[in-house]
């Protein structure tokens, strides 16, 4: 869409006493008013759908969840709400299981996000070179992202099964004892992280690749004239140019790992999945919320968990922003040669 709107102030005629106006003139005036109204109002009509839908399906549920969080509501009687104030928040903050799931969520988040983004950077760098059938490779790395969480988690559940699982069978061939992946505190987190990494690496790699394509070529040329190796070019040219993109993927991945639900739910499935393992060893915040609301049947604390998750996300975003700002300012200090 490469159209530019012509300016329209030329249509406004000089004001005249209205009674002397010939009809065509009056119509002209009316028309110009319509023009102006159109000019001012139509943008709102264009953006209205999003805001209406967001209001109905985003904002309203968000606020209503907050309302529920201040009440006692149980699954067996949604119509009876009893005001309890901050009691639900008090309840979850004093529940050791809540803190277990907070730490689980963070641990799984870290061990899935960090390797994932590093691998995505490497992959994007490789795909950025001229190679044969590049479109094919770019499509291939996106295929895991195209699978549904459920099917990916179910297939990996078969891989990680304690007895008769593909992975243990392979380990057995090499001579290792079978590992009960879902039962161990670290192994279960690792297993879930692997599912996440498998699904999202390609997606992030494509985002990085798109950003890399936008890095001007003369930067690389200048760097190679200065005698920088490929690796140095990657470190000194590619990474700094990608900084905003990297920050974006970190934020997106953080939000994603905060909401981890399907992978832990289906790793063992059934009753164990719904409580995040028999010792809650891979219980994420979403699972904790689901278990509190749907298995134990108390929606108040579950809603409080939802708001606690929002608070944690905002906290992470703030930390991210501060780090980003600090990095930027130290960067500009280096660039302007502000050395002592």
């Amino acid at each position, binding site marked *: 869409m*490469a*159209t*530019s709107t*012509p300016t329209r102030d030329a249509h406004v005629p000089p004001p005249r006493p209205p009674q002397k106006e010939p009809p065509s003139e009056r119509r002209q005036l009316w*028309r110009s008013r*319509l023009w102006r109204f*159109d000019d001012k109002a*139509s943008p709102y*009509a*264009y953006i*209205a*759908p999003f805001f*209406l*839908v967001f209001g*109905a*399906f985003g904002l309203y549920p968000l606020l209503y969840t907050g309302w529920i969080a201040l009440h006692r509501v149980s*699954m*067996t*009687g*949604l119509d009876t709400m009893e005001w309890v104030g901050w009691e639900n928040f008090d*309840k979850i903050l004093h*529940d*050791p*299981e809540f803190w277990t799931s907070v730490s689980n969520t963070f641990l799984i988040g870290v061990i899935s996000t960090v390797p994932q983004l590093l691998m995505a950077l490497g992959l994007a760098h490789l795909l950025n070179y001229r190679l044969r059938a590049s479109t094919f490779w770019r499509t291939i790395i996106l295929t895991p992202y195209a699978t549904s969480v459920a099917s990916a988690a179910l297939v990996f559940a078969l891989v990680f*099964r*304690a*007895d*008769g699982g593909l992975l243990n069978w392979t380990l057995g061939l090499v001579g290792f004892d079978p590992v009960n992946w879902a*039962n161990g505190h670290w192994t279960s987190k690792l297993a879930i992280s692997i599912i996440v990494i498998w699904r999202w690496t390609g997606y992030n790699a494509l985002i990085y690749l798109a950003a890399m394509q936008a890095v001007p070529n003369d930067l690389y040329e200048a760097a190679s004239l200065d005698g920088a190796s490929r690796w140095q070019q990657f470190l000194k040219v590619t990474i700094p140019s990608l900084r905003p993109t990297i920050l974006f993927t970190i934020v997106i991945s953080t939000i994603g790992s905060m909401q981890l639900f399907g992978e832990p739910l289906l790793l*063992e*499935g*059934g*009753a*164990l999945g*719904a*409580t995040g393992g*028999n*010792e809650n060893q891979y219980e994420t915040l979403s699972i904790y919320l689901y278990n*509190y609301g*749907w*298995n*134990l*049947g*108390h929606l108040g*604390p579950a809603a409080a968990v939802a708001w606690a998750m929002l608070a944690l996300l905002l906290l992470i975003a703030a930390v991210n922003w501060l780090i980003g700002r600090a990095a930027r300012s130290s960067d500009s200090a280096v660039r302007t040669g502000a050395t002592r």
Partner: protein
Amino acid sequence: MRITRSVAGRRRRTAIVATTGLTVTALLLTGCGGSSDSGSKGADADGNITLTVADFGQFGYKEAGLFEKYHELNPKITVKEDTTAEEKNYYPKLLQQLNSGSGLADVQGIEVGRIKEIVDTKADSFTDLSKVIDVDQWVSWKAKQATAPSGAVIGAGTDIGPMSLCYNRELFEKAGLPTDRAEVAKRMSGGWEDYLALGEEYKKKAPEGTFFMDSASAMFNAVVSSSPEQYYDASGKPVYKESASVRKGWNLAAEAASKKLTQGLAQFEDQWQAALRKSTVATVVCPAWMAGQISTYAGDANQGKWDITTAPGGTSANWGGSFLAVPKSGKNVEEATKLVKWLTAPEQQAAVFKAIGVFPSNQGAYELPDVKSATLPYFNNAPIGQIYADGAKSIPEAVLGPKDGVIKDSISTQINNMEQRGTKPDAAWDAAVRTVDKAIG
């Protein structure tokens, strides 16, 4: 690129875009109002009706071919069954559907661990069946469990779970234990302590990689089920911390775990199913419906290797059993009620018993030859009719509570931790109490 257009053209285009935008918005805002299809649309033009039955686990109607039979008797009615494997996943879904009033089937199964909660909170959503069905036919406590304060009976009793013990003859023989039913029963005549003693004997000569029992939580459940006081007292107060039966069951389970007599599997989960397939467990505590589970998962390869005997010490207990309820919101309430009446009548309950061994709650069925002289070929022709009928008559009337199901599940999980992870009994109990208190609170 600069495009000049006629004034009229611009305006028309603006109008089109604006109306399109508004139309899309309108569609989006109205498009979410559609309710999910509940599968019952009343009758079609020819008067044909499709009734939906939502249940969980194994109700045995499919195995007994009852739905086809009902269609033969009533050509205009077709029954579709929608089964959820685990009750734990089925129940939250049922509550959600009851809350939203959509997506309910014409007939919904309800497990005994949930019936009290449904009776207490959702009785108004279900049809009173006592007008159509003679509830005095059931064992006395069954009707009581499903009776709302208003006197309405909201669920028709399907089966009950009198207790027995299933054991693997082949493994018993290898371990040098008796394989004869009466002999095995005699060795455990003193109750669950004898059962554990037998387990220690088994362990001495146990075939490699096998265990005496699948899960100590099953034993815990059997002990609790045999007592009238379980998790709640008669006034509806949770007393699971003081309850004698809970304590006894817990201590026995802790002992079994510490002596490594159990494989420590979470019942019904994948690994438990695999253990049955591979015959790594020698005994499974067997409420009547468990036999169907064992024959399903152990598979044809193990046909005839299993057997059934009376529970240790002649425990008479009821573990499990279900109800069929008819939601008022259905479009075919009358036909659904007729179906429920037919499914829970003595002949049909006997047919289901014959097919998968879930025991009738309808006492009219006990005198039928299909029940009285029933044997299960899979279990070495064990005379289950006789084993269960004796137990069913002396089952104590248990006090049920609204959160029985959750309490049982939470404690079972912690028993599993004692078995699998060697969690200390005290720590495991504390963890169980934390979860249960959350559920009750």
